[in-house]
């Protein structure tokens, strides 16, 4: 019976630029997605659809289940209910690594870089699947090794230059300042050639000018690579400015969906964030 309720509510896109969104089919759909840990339902009845080049936001109070959604999408958690359709295909049988190959890349709320490796190596690691040379050419350094390593080096530098980090290639990732580490995580995610980029609090710990720069860069990434971006963020300035569609979560459920202006005016959202207004106060 529950399955009958599966009404897919696509996330509205504000700027339906015709040439950009010529392909109207969503790149990612979640249908009744849910996970419970024992008796606790961390996420339930989660339904969204992401447009191909849409920037969407997932917001909500702490503990609402936003990061759990990311972990479900990337198969860090195995969903206990529902379906994830990536390019129309069910990701049920895929592992985390395979989901990434299929096109979902992510960053982490608590930065997870390869601390002891260089910035360039961090990016090159993400290109592993695109590099094809065999173990034998690794060990004997056959021509295919040199050829692919050179291409990888150039591509890594190109990607790093999105955030103007091309000169930091040799630095140890763990030694970078906080903001640069966050940016490197985005570059690393982009190096896997994703069709969807999941950003978990990309602006956390950044100052206002860094956040402004980040906003520009997120839009630039979308425009350059034509990918969908879903981001979790507490910085409302960033969310309201760059997201075309927003979903609000509370207690593991989506409580509202809409454009930034709709969300800002939604009483349910205001209640979730600020609590209920007293009748007398209104």
């Amino acid at each position, binding site marked *: 019976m529950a399955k009958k309720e599966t009404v897919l509510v696509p996330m509205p896109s504000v700027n339906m630029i015709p040439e950009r969104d010529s392909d109207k089919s969503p790149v990612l759909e979640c249908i009744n997605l849910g996970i419970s840990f024992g008796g606790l339902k961390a996420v339930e009845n989660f339904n969204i659809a992401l447009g191909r080049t849409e920037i969407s936001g997932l917001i909500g109070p702490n503990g609402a289940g936003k990061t759990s959604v990311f972990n479900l999408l990337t198969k*860090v958690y195995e969903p206990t209910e529902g379906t994830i359709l990536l390019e129309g295909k069910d990701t049920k049988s895929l592992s985390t690594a395979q989901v990434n190959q299929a096109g979902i890349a*992510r960053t982490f709320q608590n930065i997870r870089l390869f601390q002891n490796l260089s910035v360039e190596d961090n990016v090159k690691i993400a290109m592993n699947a695109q590099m094809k040379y065999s173990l034998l050419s690794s060990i004997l350094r056959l021509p295919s090794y040199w050829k692919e390593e*050179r291409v990888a080096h150039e591509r890594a530098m190109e990607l790093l230059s999105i955030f103007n980090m091309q000169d930091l290639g040799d630095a140890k990732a763990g030694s970078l300042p906080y903001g640069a580490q966050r940016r490197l995580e985005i570059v690393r995610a982009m190096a896997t050639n994703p069709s969807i980029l999941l950003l978990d609090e990309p602006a956390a710990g950044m100052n206002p000018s860094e956040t402004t720069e980040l906003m520009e860069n997120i839009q630039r990434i979308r425009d350059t690579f034509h990918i969908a971006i879903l981001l979790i963020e507490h910085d409302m300035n960033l969310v309201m400015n760059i997201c075309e569609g927003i979903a609000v979560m509370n207690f593991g459920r989506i409580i509202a969906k809409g454009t930034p202006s709709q969300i800002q005016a939604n009483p349910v959202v205001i209640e979730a964030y600020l609590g209920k207004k007293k009748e007398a106060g209104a």
Partner: protein
Amino acid sequence: MGPVNRKTLFKDSRSDLFTYLGVILAFIVITMLKNRGALNRSQSGLLVPICCYIVMAVSLNLTVGILGDLSLGHAGFMSVGAFTGIITSMSLIDIIPSAPIRLTIAIFVGAFFASIVGFLVGIPVLRLKGDYLAIVTLAFGEILKELITCLIVGFDSKGLHIIFNVSGSKTANDLNLLEGGRVIIKGAQGATGTKTIANFTAGFILVMITLVIVLNLIRSRHGRAIMAIRDNRIAAESVGIPLTKFKMIAFVTSTALAGAAGALFGLNYSNLAAAKFDFNTSILVLVFVVLGGLGNIWGSILATVVLYILPEALRGFASYRMLIYAIVLILVMLTTNNPVLKSLFSRWSFRGNKQESEGGSNG
């Protein structure tokens, strides 16, 4: 633009080159000393084992330092290589009289069998993490040793005869060898009467091959993936690195090299029992790796040479030998972990890098 790119691409290779040159130089110096008779019998007897232990330490560093999984059963894989190597060499003795060729084949066979065992052990073991992995590898190391202790192997004109002596009641006579046959392994007694064909040159070549394999692996996409797993397995998976595959690559390469080292080691002694490859040997190699620095290949070599020679050099102190050895180990740990010395070293290397890059931009 072009030359700068090339420079960064070759930079790692350049530091590897110094490692190779250092080992080659050491080989030349030692060979010259040996030819002039400057080394006595017991000193030159240490050369082949040192080479074997260098290969063991470098290969264990691949598992412990590069992959980041603590393995306590490395000697077990060495024993697989040693005894398969001995069996190969002793079986081929009539067909291939040339010792170097036989040694090469034995080393390959040793590496091959050790890698197969490594693969089989790796399937269950690599699912575990941290302490659990260490405990299980320890158990497998002991199991391998015990299994080899049960082996009775002989060779005659009809081929290999193998008895698996689980009950403990069988002896070499049960092999029923034809006339002219040889018993190669006598159960708990181990391999006896092995023709020793290992030599220092072979050891040097094996060390060089090991270095090429391990250093080139580290600088490749495979090695980077392995180090990514070490640094952060969740992030590694999230960028599309299949954990099992790359952990297996590292582990099997490591065990294959241990097998090669074992084959060379086994063919250096006319009598060798499986009991030699016990837990203590695994720990000994681990000590070389840890004191040389996890992930530091050059350090592994240096630590092996120093720590292997030290107990021999201390023979004059007789009963205080192991006491002094322990004190030296503690001192090394204290000095390498001393924050003052650490910052001093890092400042030195930072300056070195800076000068290097400045020189690079000028040139």
